């Protein structure tokens, strides 16, 4: 397992309660995990803790053990060890702009350059990442003139260009239109063949199509962990408002659990 949390509690500075409570989870390569829950359930915090940035940057207090790529990523020694190997994509693209780039190509190259890679390796990684995310046509644009959706894809390219072993994506499609969001999700299974991919989003309708495992959080605690059908098809997930629209409709229509999560699954169940 590349990421392992054991009995982790975390509280933000000035927080009135724990943002994570006794979280024990492990993530490994080969699967795309969806972490979801209501707003404030702790999904974003979970990613920050796994990346070591909470408490390293955010402050606050953590207990329990976090091991990512074999080290505690929040310790000084661990931070050097994991530099560039954990790719964390944050939800707001504007505050992620490096501020050091005059073109999209330079913006995507920001991470690899910070890792001190040789120039030809940076060039290949940047071209590859831009092709993967489909932003080659933006290469020479000034990143400060892009739309939110374009910028979000540039940021995804900037993270994947670093070729991280762990990919933590926090609401990566917040600024994208439905087609753009679907495109980003479709990249994940291929990336997960060699990497550990954890996706935190409330956009469950689209995300459920590509994930193989779902972790449901409620007020900082893990309430369910398993296949999408086992976790999201339950009364509890739908009652929390954390399941898909289809599941909600089926539940409101008076059917019993397990609920189908996608249109295709609903058709399989009802349209015989």
């Amino acid at each position, binding site marked *: 397992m590349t990421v392992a949390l054991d009995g982790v509690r975390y509280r*933000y500075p*000035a927080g009135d309660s724990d943002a994570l409570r006794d979280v024990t989870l492990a993530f490994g390569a080969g699967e795309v995990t969806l972490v979801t829950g209501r707003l404030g359930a702790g999904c974003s915090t979970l990613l920050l803790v796994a990346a070591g940035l909470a408490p390293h940057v955010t*402050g606050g207090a953590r207990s329990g053990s976090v091991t990512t790529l074999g080290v505690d990523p929040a310790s000084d020694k661990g931070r050097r060890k994991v530099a560039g190997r954990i790719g964390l994509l944050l939800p707001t693209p504007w505050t992620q702009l490096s501020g050091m780039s005059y073109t999209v190509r330079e913006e995507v190259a920001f991470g690899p350059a910070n890792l001190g890679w040789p120039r030809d390796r940076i060039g290949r990684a940047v071209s590859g990442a831009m092709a993967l995310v489909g932003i080659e046509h933006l290469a020479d644009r000034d990143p400060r003139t892009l739309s939110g959706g374009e910028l979000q894809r540039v940021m995804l390219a900037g993270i994947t260009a670093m070729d991280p072993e762990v990919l933590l994506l926090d609401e990566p499609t917040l600024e994208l239109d439905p087609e753009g969001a679907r495109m980003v999700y479709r990249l994940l299974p291929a990336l997960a063949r060699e990497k550990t991919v954890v996706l935190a989003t409330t956009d469950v309708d689209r995300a459920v199509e590509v994930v193989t495992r779902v972790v449901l959080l409620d007020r900082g605690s893990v309430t369910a962990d398993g296949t999408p059908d086992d976790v999201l098809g339950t009364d509890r997930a739908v009652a929390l408002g954390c399941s898909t629209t289809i599941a909600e409709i089926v539940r409101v229509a008076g059917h019993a659990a397990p609920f189908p999560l996608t249109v295709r699954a609903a058709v399989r169940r009802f349209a015989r």
Partner: protein
Amino acid sequence: MIPLSSRLLALIPLAVGINLAMGKFAAALSLPLFLDTVGTVLVATLAGPWAAVATGVVSQVAFTVLDGKLMWMAFLPVQLGVALYAGLAARRGAFASPWRAATAGLVLGLIAATLSWPIAFLLFGGVTAGGVTVVTTLLTALGVPLKWAVYGASLSNDLLDKCVTFLLVHVVLISLPKRLSARFPAADLARGRA
């Protein structure tokens, strides 16, 4: 050189942006103020004197480059003086009440005027920024020796400017929500709640 934490790397460019944007507000309200050290003083209260010194240096470079007026660079010692003074004053709770902030600001005005006076007089022959120079010219026209005219003009400007700057930072510090102030432990010291 000590590497700055990523929080300071993020904070300093924003603080410099505040330094320069405040001038826009002063101009819109046709106030005879620069307010171009609000960001520097703010960093002094949030992150201490050395972070403020870094902000002052970067601010002066950015101001010079963006304004195209190299002579601002000559006033770098003034920015440094402001940064150090504000950092030390913050540690002693200078922002705990409006009165303390105003008094500390007036003292800083005196220091800043004394620092900028030799620069304005020796390097620029008394001709510096718009409003101050008008006062200088008026005073010389009234027969005041140039040396004292320059000092008088700097002083009248700096006393008000630094006093308002410190009051503004005081207001910002008391309106910091808990979520933010918890991220800058030095802020509690500055507003006397430590």
